[in-house]
């Protein structure tokens, strides 16, 4: 398939200095975590799971320019779907994951159709309400969700008799899945479909004037984001082996938004970078003991005040604009 067209396809990742440093840093980090083992492995596992969630969120917020504060609802559908199907019905983990994604996608379609007419604060609030409703249902509908107790004993990922039990192997598997997720999102982004989404984000009137059906594209992006969220919910269930309503609560909204913000909304690698950095941040401030959460919130606020468009935008200040032309440098 090495047609000339492929070579002229715009590179998905810009190989400027900062990106290279970032990728090297990530590699070193992974090697270190791998060697060190222990608790850091769990931290990185969670970072990858949240990363999958953020890739989807980035699709909806970054590329399409719409705010959703309720993606945790779809993560809950994924998590509970997997848990119920695996624990109660002994379904294959992979099959359970896919089934839950289908359910989440249909839910997003049904919910998104009326909701996406709203904009700005109202869309944010309506989606926020969706997340909270899902949380309350997961607490209250005890016959289905076992309430606050949650589900334990969810089997790890695997196919047939082969299951991934080793923590290091789990991390490798999650990392590969997250990278596949990123790759898919890149393929979608760099296409007629992705261009239309980014056009909507740039200017809705401009997009409409060129014949783009805005509501339909927003809805598709919302469903895609829900599929990612659902997948990450399922992965959480399989990796940790236990879920409860708290996992998919308000905490998840704040954490994932922080990640996306730190990594840079609308950037390519932002969701994954943000997920790693923001997962490590609490570990760094952990040394402050009982001031840990205060430090976390204070750092977040300082970043929001001084770099309101994300840390990626700070990097932009040091980036020469000419570097945006990789073809001529190659």
């Amino acid at each position, binding site marked *: 398939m090495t047609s000339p067209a492929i070579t002229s396809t715009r590179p998905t990742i810009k190989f400027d200095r900062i990106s290279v440093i970032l990728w090297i840093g990530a590699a070193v980090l992974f090697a270190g975590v791998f060697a060190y083992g222990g608790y850091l492995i769990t931290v990185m596992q969670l970072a990858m799971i949240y990363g999958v969630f953020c890739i989807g969120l980035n699709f909806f917020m970054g590329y399409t320019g719409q705010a959703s504060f309720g993606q945790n609802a779809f993560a809950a559908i994924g998590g509970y779907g997997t848990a119920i199907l695996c624990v109660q019905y002994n379904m294959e983990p992979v099959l359970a994951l896919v089934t839950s994604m289908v359910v989440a996608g249909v839910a997003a379609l049904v919910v998104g159709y009326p909701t996406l007419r709203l904009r700005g604060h109202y869309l944010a609030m309506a989606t926020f309400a969706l997340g909270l409703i899902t949380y309350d249902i997961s607490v209250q509908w005890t016959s289905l969700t076992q309430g606050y107790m949650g589900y334990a004993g969810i089997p790890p990922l695997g196919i047939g008799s082969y299951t991934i039990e080793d923590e290091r192997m789990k991390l490798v598997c999650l990392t590969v899945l997250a990278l596949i997720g990123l790759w898919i999102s890149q393929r*979608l982004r760099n296409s007629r479909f992705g261009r239309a989404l980014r056009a909507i984000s740039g200017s809705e009137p401009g997009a409409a004037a060129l014949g783009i059906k805005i509501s339909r594209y927003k809805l598709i992006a919302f469903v895609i984001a829900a599929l990612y969220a659902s997948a990450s919910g399922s992965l959480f269930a399989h990796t940790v082996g236990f879920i409860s309503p708290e996992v998919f609560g308000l905490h998840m909204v704040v954490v994932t938004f922080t990640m996306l913000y730190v990594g840079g909304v609308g950037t390519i690698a932002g969701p994954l970078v943000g997920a790693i950095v923001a997962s490590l941040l609490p570990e760094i401030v952990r040394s402050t003991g009982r001031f840990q959460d205060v430090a976390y919130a204070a750092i977040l606020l300082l970043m929001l005040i001084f770099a309101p468009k994300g840390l990626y935008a700070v990097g932009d200040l040091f980036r020469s604009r000419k570097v945006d032309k990789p073809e001529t440098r190659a």
Partner: protein
Amino acid sequence: MTLLKVRNLTKRFDGLIANKDINLDVPEGSLFAVIGPNGAGKTTFFSMISGFLPSTAGTIEFDGHDITRKPQDQIAALGLIRTFQLVQLFKGMSVAENVEVGCHLRTKGGVASALFRPSWFYQQETEVRDRARELLDFVGLSAQSEQDADLLPYGQRRLLEMARALAAKPRLLLLDEPAAGLNTQETDALALVIQKINAQGTTVLLIEHDMALVTRIAQRIAVLDFGRKIAEGTPDEIKQHPDVIAAYLGVEEAEHA
């Protein structure tokens, strides 16, 4: 042949009449201009034609299709493409990508083709990129094609918006005050581009307050004042028209002239 046919088009906002019984026939292939002082209702008129504002009364017919109160994307799909007074570029996309979006109506493909990429996908992408390059050449922006669109100076943004609209291969191109905020050289460059577009067979309907530009390039001019059409004719007829001079320079002009 008449490409755009407007009959008794009227728009009321809360009792205020913005457009009143406007009739207009834009012949295919022409370069037609609508002018009028600030607040005359030009943009309202435009927004109704392009489907961005529902009309209160009247009909709009484009290429034989009734497009009154049709949604914007359907009107665009028929080949009626507009630009905006406040340029609506896609922020965060490069100059070339902006034009590539313009090809939306003339291409196909959704999620599945983006994911699985059959061979036509690559062929189409190549065509889209070539088309974008061609159009950027045409408006003179090829050197900036990889830049972020929001970094362009104002005059070039207008040109980019025009290239983007052309990518949709419009039958009728609506330009909303394309010279607003441009300096003299930029206006001249723009005038040339508009004339070239028209010469290549695209019908152009232009809203403009820059009389100098309009009288130079338009073949026919309609004048709006207080939401009504007060005159229509060739540039020379319009320049001499007492009502037009009055509308632009004020009511007492008629006495002084």
